[in-house]
C-alpha cells in the first residue's frame, strides 16, 4: 500500500511498535558484518535451535550493530514491559544458556553487559544502565539512533522510531526553501571529510540552471579504519533513504544514486531491500505522499578504487567510466552527473538529515562547537581497549574518546598517537589529547576530520612505518592522471622504504619534506593534495623516530624488520616447545622443559613464535 495520509503513516508505526515490542519475549542478535565475523551467525543458529527444541514462544530477530564491536557478538533480550537487556560476547554456548534461563523464567543478568530503558522503566535485577558504562556514557546518538535497535529489514520498525515523519513534514508541510533554511540553520557540515556546509551545497545545486538534477549518496567508504557508513547502511538503511528523499525534494531532483563500495555486500543487500520496501510504501517512486514529487533511487556498485570516494571520480564511475577526477570548477553542483547539476553527500550526512528536519535546525546547532555543529561518529580502532563506533558531540576531547570511552590503550601500553582522516589525514600526538575535536581543531594539528576513522597507536607502532604504509596505499590508489601525485607519491615511498630498511641517505628527510610540499601544492584532486599529510605530520611530531632510523639505524617501536632482532630470554623461557614447533625456518631448537636456543641467522622475523609464547620470553628490539 502506498501511504498518502498521516493516519496511514501512524498505522504503519503501530505495526512497527507491535513488531519491536511483541507481547512475548523477543531476542535480537546483531548480525552486521562485524557481528557475523565474530560468530553472530552461530549464536543466531543456536538461539533458533534452542527455541525450537524447547518450543518457546519467543520472537527471534536480527538487528544491526549497537556500536560496541569489541563486545560482539551481541544479543538483546526484551520481555514485555521490561528493558532491553544486552548480552555481550555471545558464542553458541552462551546463547543456548541464555535461552534456557529464559525458559526457566529468569534473565541471566549476571552475564549481561547493560540494559537500555524502554519507556524509562528500570529492571528488577542489578545491572548498569547503558549510559552508566564508560563506553556509552559520553555518547549522544543521532546518526546511530536506530542502529542495533531495529531490524534493518523492517520498514515498519523504522517508521515506529519516527521514521519518514521528517519526509512527511518536508514534502507536505514545508517548501524547499524552508527545508534549505532549516539545514543551513543546523550548521551541518559534510561528514565525508571536507566539512563543506551542507545547506550551502544544496542551495548551489538548487540554484544551478537546469531542469534535471541528481542527488547522490557517497557510500564509497574508502578510508581504511573508518566503517561508520557500513554500520549505518547495514543497521538503518531507511535513514539514508529518507535523508536523500528530503534532499531531492529540496533540491528538485527526481533521480538519485547510492554509490556503494564493492567490499560491502551486506550493505548492498540491505539497501536493495530497503529501496524496494520504501517504494512499495510510497516513500519513493511516483507522487510521494500524493504530491507532485517523484524519486527513484538506484544503487551503483563500486569497483574497488579508493579514488572514487572523491566526488568527481565517483560521478565518472557512475557513468561507467574509469574513476578519474576532474578539475573543479565546475563543481558537481553546476555540472555533475551527465553534465547536470548534482549534489553529493556522504552516508552519515544523509543519515543526520531526517533528525534535523524533524527536530529543527536550532536543536542540532545547539550541540557541538561554534564551527562544527552536531555529533560525529568515529570508528575507534587500533590499539585501544574498547573498539567500536562512537558518536559524540563535536568538541569532545581526544582524551575522553580514547581513555574514557575507549578504556585506554591495549595491554597497558603507552599512548603514542591517533591517526585520523585516513590516508589524507595525519597522526596526532599526545600533546593534543585535551584538544576538543572538531573540523577546525583537527586541521590545526595538520590532520583532518576525514570520515571519522580514529586509529589509536601505542609505543609499539612505528610512525615511519605508518607513513610508509599510507604512501604504499596511495601509490596503488593514485589514478595516475596528474604527475605530481603519481610521481611525488612514488618517490616519497622510495625514500620512506629506504629509511625503514636502514638504507637512508644523507638529506633524505629534507628531500622528503620538499617532495611532500610539491605534491601537496600541485596535485589535481584532494587525493594527491592531501597525500603528504601522513608524512608531514609524522615528521612534525615524531622527528626523533625518523632520526633514530636514519642516524642510529634503529626502530624504537621494534617494527621495521630490517632494523630489529629477535632473541629468547633464557631466564624466562620455560621450554614448552610451542615456538620451536611453529618456527617455519627451524631457527629455534631445544629440549622439553629446558630453555630453548635461538639462531638469529635463520630467523625471518615472522613473529609466529611471539604470538604463541605464553611466558613472553621472546623479545624483539
Amino acid at each position, binding site marked *: 500500500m502506498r501511504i498518502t495520509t498521516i493516519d496511514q503513516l501512524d498505522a504503519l508505526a503501530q505495526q512497527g511498535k507491535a513488531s519491536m515490542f511483541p507481547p512475548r519475549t523477543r531476542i535480537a542478535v546483531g548480525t552486521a*558484518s*562485524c557481528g*557475523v*565475523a*565474530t560468530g553472530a551467525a552461530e549464536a543466531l543458529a543456536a538461539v533458533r535451535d534452542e527455541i525450537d527444541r524447547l518450543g518457546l514462544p519467543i520472537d527471534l530477530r536480527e538487528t544491526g550493530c549497537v556500536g560496541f*564491536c*569489541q563486545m*560482539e557478538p551481541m544479543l538483546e533480550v526484551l520481555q514485555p514491559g521490561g528493558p532491553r537487556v544486552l548480552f555481550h560476547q555471545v558464542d553458541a554456548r552462551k546463547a543456548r544458556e541464555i535461552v534456557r534461563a529464559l525458559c526457566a523464567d529468569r534473565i541471566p543478568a549476571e552475564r549481561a553487559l547493560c540494559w537500555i530503558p524502554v519507556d524509562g522503566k528500570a529492571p528488577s535485577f542489578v545491572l548498569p544502565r547503558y549510559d552508566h558504562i564508560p563506553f556509552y556514557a559520553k555518547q549522544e546518538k543521532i546518526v546511530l539512533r536506530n542502529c542495533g535497535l531495529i531490524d534493518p529489514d523492517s520498514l515498519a520498525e523504522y517508521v515506529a522510531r519516527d521514521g519518514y515523519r521528517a519526509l512527511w513534514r518536508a514534502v507536505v508541510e514545508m517548501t524547499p526553501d524552508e527545508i534549505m533554511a532549516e539545514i543551513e540553520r543546523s550548521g551541518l557540515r559534510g561528514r565525508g571529510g571536507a566539512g563543506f556546509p551542507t545547506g550551502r551545497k544544496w542551495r548551489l545545486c538548487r540554484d544551478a540552471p537546469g531542469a534535471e538534477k541528481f542527488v547522490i549518496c557517497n557510500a564509497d*567508504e*574508502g*578510508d*581504511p*579504519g*573508518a*566503517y561508520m557508513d*557500513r554500520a549505518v547502511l547495514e543497521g538503518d538503511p531507511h535513514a539514508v533513504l529518507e535523508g536523500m528523499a528530503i534532499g531531492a525534494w529540496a533540491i528538485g531532483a527526481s533521480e538519485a544514486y547510492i554509490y556503494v563500495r*564493492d*567490499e*560491502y*555486500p551486506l550493505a548492498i543487500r540491505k539497501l536493495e531491500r530497503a529501496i524496494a520496501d520504501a517504494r512499495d510504501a510510497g516513500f519513493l517512486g511516483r507522487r510521494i505522499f500524493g504530491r507532485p514529487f517523484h524519486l527513484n533511487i538506484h544503487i*551503483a*556498485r*563500486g*569497483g*574497488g*578504487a*579508493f579514488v572514487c570516494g572523491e566526488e568527481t571520480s565517483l560521478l565518472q*564511475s*557512475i*557513468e*561507467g*567510466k*574509469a*574513476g578519474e577526477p576532474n578539475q573543479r570548477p565546475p563543481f558537481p553542483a553546476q555540472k555533475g552527473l551527465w553534465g547536470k547539476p548534482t549534489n553529493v553527500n556522504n552516508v552519515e550526512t544523509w543519515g543526520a538529515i531526517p533528525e534535523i528536519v524533524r527536530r529543527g535546525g536550532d536543536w542540532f546547532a545547539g550541540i557541538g562547537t561554534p564551527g562544527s555543529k552536531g555529533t560525529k561518529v568515529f*570508528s*575507534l*580502532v*587500533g*590499539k585501544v581497549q574498547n*573498539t567500536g*563506533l562512537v558518536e559524540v558531540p563535536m568538541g569532545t576531547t581526544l582524551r575522553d574518546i580514547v581513555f574514557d570511552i575507549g578504556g585506554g590503550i591495549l595491554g597497558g601500553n603507552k599512548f603514542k598517537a591517533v*591517526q585520523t582522516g*585516513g590516508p589524507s589525514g595525519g597522526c596526532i600526538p599526545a600533546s593534543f589529547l585535551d584538544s576538543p575535536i572538531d573540523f577546525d581543531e583537527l586541521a590545526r594539528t595538520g590532520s583532518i576530520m576525514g570520515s571519522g*576513522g580514529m*586509529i589509536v*597507536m601505542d609505543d609499539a*607502532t612505528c610512525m615511519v612505518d*605508518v607513513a610508509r*604504509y*599510507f604512501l604504499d*596505499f596511495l601509490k*596503488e590508489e593514485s*589514478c595516475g592522471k596528474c604527475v605530481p601525485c603519481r610521481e611525488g607519491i612514488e618517490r616519497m615511498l622510495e625514500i620512506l622504504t629506504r629509511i625503514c630498511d636502514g638504507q637512508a641517505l644523507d638529506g633524505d628527510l629534507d628531500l622528503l619534506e620538499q617532495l611532500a610540499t610539491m605534491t601537496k601544492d600541485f596535485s589535481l584532486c584532494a587525493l594527491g593534495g592531501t597525500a603528504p599529510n601522513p608524512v608531514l605530520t609524522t615528521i612534525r611530531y615524531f622527528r626523533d623516530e625518523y632520526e633514530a632510523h636514519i642516524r642510529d639505524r634503529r626502530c624504537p617501536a621494534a617494527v621495521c624488520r630490517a632494523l630489529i632482532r629477535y632473541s629468547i630470554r633464557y631466564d624466562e623461557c620455560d621450554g614448552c616447545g610451542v615456538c620451536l614447533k*611453529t618456527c*617455519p625456518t627451524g631457527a629455534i631448537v631445544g629440549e622439553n622443559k629446558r630453555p630453548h636456543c635461538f639462531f638469529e641467522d635463520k630467523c625471518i622475523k*615472522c*613473529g*609466529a613464535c611471539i*604470538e*604463541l609464547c605464553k611466558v613472553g620470553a621472546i623479545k624483539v628490539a
Partner: protein
Amino acid sequence: MAESSFPSVPAILERHDHQEHALIAVLQEIQRTRNWLPPDDLEAVASGLRVPPSRVFGIATFYKAFSLVPRGRHVFQVCVGTACHVRGAQHILDRIAREMRIDPGGTTPDARFTLERVRCLGCCSIAPVLRVGEATHGRLTQHRAAQILKRYP
C-alpha cells in the same frame, strides 16, 4: 567460452538494456559468475555495447575488483587497512602466503587458493581481518589464519 550454467554475455547485456553506462555493472556480473573476466567475454561486451575494446579493457584494469586471470576456488582477502596494519596484518599476510606458497596477488597451481590484499573491509574493530568469499574472520592470529586455510579444500 561461457558454460551453460553462466548467464551468457548477450543475456547480461540484455538485462542492462545495452546501456553504455552499465559497463561496470556488466563486468561485475561476468566477474561474479565466472570468477574472472575471460578475454572473449570482454570482446563480446565491447561489440555488444558498441564501445572500443580499449575502453572495456581500460575499465577492467582500472578497478581492482576485476581480474584478467582465472582465480582460485577460494579467494583469501587479507585486510591491510590501517587498523589491521597496526595490529599485525603484515605478519598474517606473510604467513598465509608462506602456507599457500604464493605471493599476494597469486593463485596456487592447483587453483585452490587466490591470495589478495585488500584495503579495509570495514571490520576494523575486530582487526586483523580476513575474508574468504562472503565469510569474514576477525581477531586473527597467524596460528588461526593457518587453521582457517584447512577449512577450504
